[in-house]
C-alpha cells in the first residue's frame, strides 16, 4: 500500500467520478438558497479557487521529487512533529467527513425507502467504508476507473431528462446580485474543499507529461459536469430548487411522470448513488490513511475500523440533532479545514525542494 503510486489517469477519474459525486446531493439546493440565480457563479467560484490549490499541490509533488507530505515533514521537522501534523490531518478529514456521510445517509433514507430503520443504511455504508479504506490507494485508484462511468452516465442521463423542462431565464439577471453569489460560495465552501485530497496524494502520483494540465483539466471537467447538473436543477425548479435536497430523484421526475414505463430516472439515480457511497467514504478513507501514518498500526485494518467506528458513533449520536450539527459544521468546521487546505500548502511551498526520482514505468497501475 505504501509503495503504490496512483496514475494521472486514475487521479483524473477520481476527480470526475468521486469529487463530482460529492456535489450532487445537498450542494445544489443549499447554493440555490443563498446564491439564487447566481448559483452557477457561486459553484464555479468555489471550484476555481480549489483548482488553484490543486495546482499548488501538484506542483509540490513535482518540487519534492515524489516524496509524501509525511516524508517531507519528517525530514525537515522530525518524525514526531510530522506525526502530529498528520494527526491534525486526520482530524480535518474526520470533520470533513461528517457532512458527506450524513448527506449520503439522508439521501438513501429519504429517497430509497418509504420506511426504513436507521441501521439499515448506516451499517452497510460503514462496512463498505472500512473495506475501501483497508484496501488503500490501490483500491481507490482501481475503483475510480470504474466509478467514473457511473457518475458520468448517471448525471448525464438526469441532465438529459431535465433539459426539456429547463428555463434558462431562471439564471437572469446575470451577476446583478454579486453579494448573493459570494454568500452562496461561502455557505457551501465545505462541499468544495477538494484540494486537501490532492495534498495527501503528493508523492503518490506516478507523474507523466503534463501531469498538472491533465489533472486540472479533469477538475475543470468535473466543474462543468457539476455546473450542468446544478444548472439543470435550477433551470427546472427555479425558486423551488432550495428545497430540492435530493436532485437525483427529483430532476427527472417531471419528464417521466406521465409515461407508462414508470420512474426510469431512478436507474440514473441508483448509478449516482453507487458513486456517491464512495465519495462519502472518501474523507474517511483519507482520515484512515492519516491515522495509520500517525500511529503505524501493525494491522492495517485497525485505522479504518477506528475512523469508521468514530464516525458511526458521531452519526448515530447526532441523528436527532442533525440540523444543529449541520449548522455547526457549515458555520465553524469551515475555518480549520480552510486553513489546512489553503494555508498549509503555501507554507510547504517555501520548503526547499528535491530532485524528481524517476520510477520505472509500469504497463498498468
Amino acid at each position, binding site marked *: 500500500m505504501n509503495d503504490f503510486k496512483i496514475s494521472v489517469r486514475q487521479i483524473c477519474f477520481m476527480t470526475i467520478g468521486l469529487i463530482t459525486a460529492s456535489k450532487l446531493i445537498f450542494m445544489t439546493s443549499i447554493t440555490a438558497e443563498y446564491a439564487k440565480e447566481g448559483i452557477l457563479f457561486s459553484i464555479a467560484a468555489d471550484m476555481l479557487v480549489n483548482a488553484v490549490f490543486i495546482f499548488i499541490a501538484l506542483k509540490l509533488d513535482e518540487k519534492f521529487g515524489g516524496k509524501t507530505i509525511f516524508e517531507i515533514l519528517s525530514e525537515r521537522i522530525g518524525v514526531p512533529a510530522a506525526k502530529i501534523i498528520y494527526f491534525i490531518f486526520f482530524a480535518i478529514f474526520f470533520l470533513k467527513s461528517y457532512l458527506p456521510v450524513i448527506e449520503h445517509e439522508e439521501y438513501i433514507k429519504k429517497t430509497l425507502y418509504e420506511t426504513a*430503520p436507521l441501521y439499515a443504511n448506516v451499517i452497510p455504508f460503514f462496512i463498505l467504508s472500512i473495506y475501501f479504506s483497508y484496501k488503500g490507494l490501490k483500491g481507490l485508484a482501481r475503483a475510480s476507473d470504474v466509478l467514473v462511468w457511473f457518475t458520468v452516465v448517471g448525471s448525464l442521463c438526469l441532465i438529459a431528462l431535465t433539459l426539456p423542462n429547463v428555463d434558462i431565464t431562471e439564471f437572469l439577471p446575470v451577476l446583478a446580485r454579486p453579494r448573493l453569489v459570494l454568500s452562496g460560495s461561502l455557505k457551501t465552501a465545505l462541499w468544495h474543499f477538494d484540494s486537501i485530497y490532492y495534498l495527501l496524494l503528493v508523492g503518490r502520483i506516478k507523474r507523466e507529461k503534463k501531469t498538472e494540465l491533465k489533472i486540472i483539466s479533469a477538475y475543470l471537467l468535473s466543474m462543468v459536469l457539476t455546473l450542468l447538473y446544478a444548472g439543470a436543477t435550477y433551470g427546472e425548479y427555479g*425558486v423551488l430548487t432550495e428545497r430540492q435536497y435530493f436532485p437525483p430523484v427529483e430532476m427527472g421526475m*417531471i419528464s417521466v411522470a*406521465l409515461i407508462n414505463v414508470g420512474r426510469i430516472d431512478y436507474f440514473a439515480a441508483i448509478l449516482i448513488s453507487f458513486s456517491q457511497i464512495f465519495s462519502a467514504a472518501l474523507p474517511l478513507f483519507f482520515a484512515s490513511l492519516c491515522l495509520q501514518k500517525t500511529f503505524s498500526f501493525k494491522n492495517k485494518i485497525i485505522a479504518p475500523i477506528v475512523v469508521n467506528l468514530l464516525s458511526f458513533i458521531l452519526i448515530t449520536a447526532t441523528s436527532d440533532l442533525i440540523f444543529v450539527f449541520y449548522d455547526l459544521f457549515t458555520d465553524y468546521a469551515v475555518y480549520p479545514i480552510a486553513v489546512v487546505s489553503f494555508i498549509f500548502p503555501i507554507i510547504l511551498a517555501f520548503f526547499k525542494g528535491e530532485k524528481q526520482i524517476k520510477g520505472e514505468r509500469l504497463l498498468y497501475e
Partner: protein
Amino acid sequence: MNKIKSKALFLAIIGLSATFFSNDFGVIDIEKTAIIVALGIDIDESEGYIVSTQIATPDPASEANVLNDQTTIEGKGKTIAQAVDNVGKNTGWYPLLTYCQLIILGEKVLDTDIMDILGVFVRTDKVPSSALVAICEGKAKEVLSATSPLDSVSSFAIEKILVKQIAKTDCVAMVNVKDFACGYYGISGFSYAPYIKTVDTDAKNTAGGESEKSQTTSLFDVTQTCYFDKGMSKGKLNPSQTLIFNILGKKTLEAYLTLENIEIFGQKADATFNIENFSSNKKVIADENGLTLDISLNATLALRDANKTGDLKSLSAIVDIPDAVLNAAELELKEIIQSIFIKTQEEKCDVFKIGETLFKFDYNNYEKFKDKIFNSKLNLTIKCNSVKK
C-alpha cells in the same frame, strides 16, 4: 487470521440470513397498500379538509391488469396530511402517494390560498411534484366519482385530456404542483390551474341482469383556466383566452383559431384556421412613462375548415387566405390579448409576468418600477400571414 476471517464470514452469513428471513422492519406489504392515483380535495367549513382518494385496485377476474371499477375513499382532517392519514386509518391500508399524478381541488378552495393546500405536496417527497393540479366545478369528490366514457377511472380520463391536449391543441393550461409552486413563489406570484367542468352526456344503458340500468357518463371540459395571485383566485380565462395564454411565448404544434362571419370564398362564413409557425416576443419597457408590455406576434394561418365551400380550389389544403380575413384574425387575437391584459391588470394579477420579466431582463429598473406593474400599458404588434404566401 484465517480463523477470524472464517468466523466473521460465518457470523455475517448468519446475520444476513436472519435479516433476510425475518424481513420485518417497517416494510410495507404491497397487498396492504392503497395505491393512490388521484386526490380530490374539498373544504368543509366545519370538518376542515375532505380528501377523496382514488385507489388503484386491479381486477382479479381479468388476466390483463386493468383497473377495477374505481374505488374512492374519503378521509377528513384539519390538514391535508391528516386527512390522507385518516384514509389509511379508516381502511387499514398504507396510503401510497407515489403514483398520485392528479390533484383535483373543489371549487370552494378558490376562496383560500391554494398553496395552503398544495404546500404539503411540495414539502414532502411522498407525492411527486409532477402531479397535475386542476380546479373543478363543484366538489372534487364528485368529479373523481364520475363515470367517463374515456376511461373506467375518471382520474385517468382527466389526465388523458390534460396531457394529450397540451401536446396538441394548447386548449388546456396544464400545470403540475412544481410549476404551480414555482409561480407562487416567483417574482410575479402568478400561477394558474385548469378548471374542470363536468358535462353530463346521454344516459348509457348497461345490461344489469334482467333489467337494464341507466347510467350517466360524464365528459370533462377543461378549457377554462383559473388564475391566481399569491395563491388567491383572481378569476378565470375563457377558452379563447386560455388558448392565447397557452401559446404566448412558446411554439405551438397544432392550435386552432375559429373566426366567425368572415368573408371567404366570396361569401360570409365561419372558418377554423390552424395556427402554424407561431412566434411571439414579449418584453417590458421601463421609461419615464412607466411600464409598457410590448408583445409582438407572428402567426401563419392555414385554413382547416369553413362552413361554406367555394370552387374545387377552395378544398385545397393550402388555400390563399384573403387579407381581410388575416386582418380579422389579427383583430381577434388583439382583442383576446387585450381582454386578458385589461382584466388581469384590474384584478392585480400579473398574468403576463411583467414583474418577473423586468426583474430578469432589466434588474436595474425593477426596484424602481416594481410597484407600478399594475399600471402598465400594453403595446401589441400582431401580424398574421397566409400559409400560401
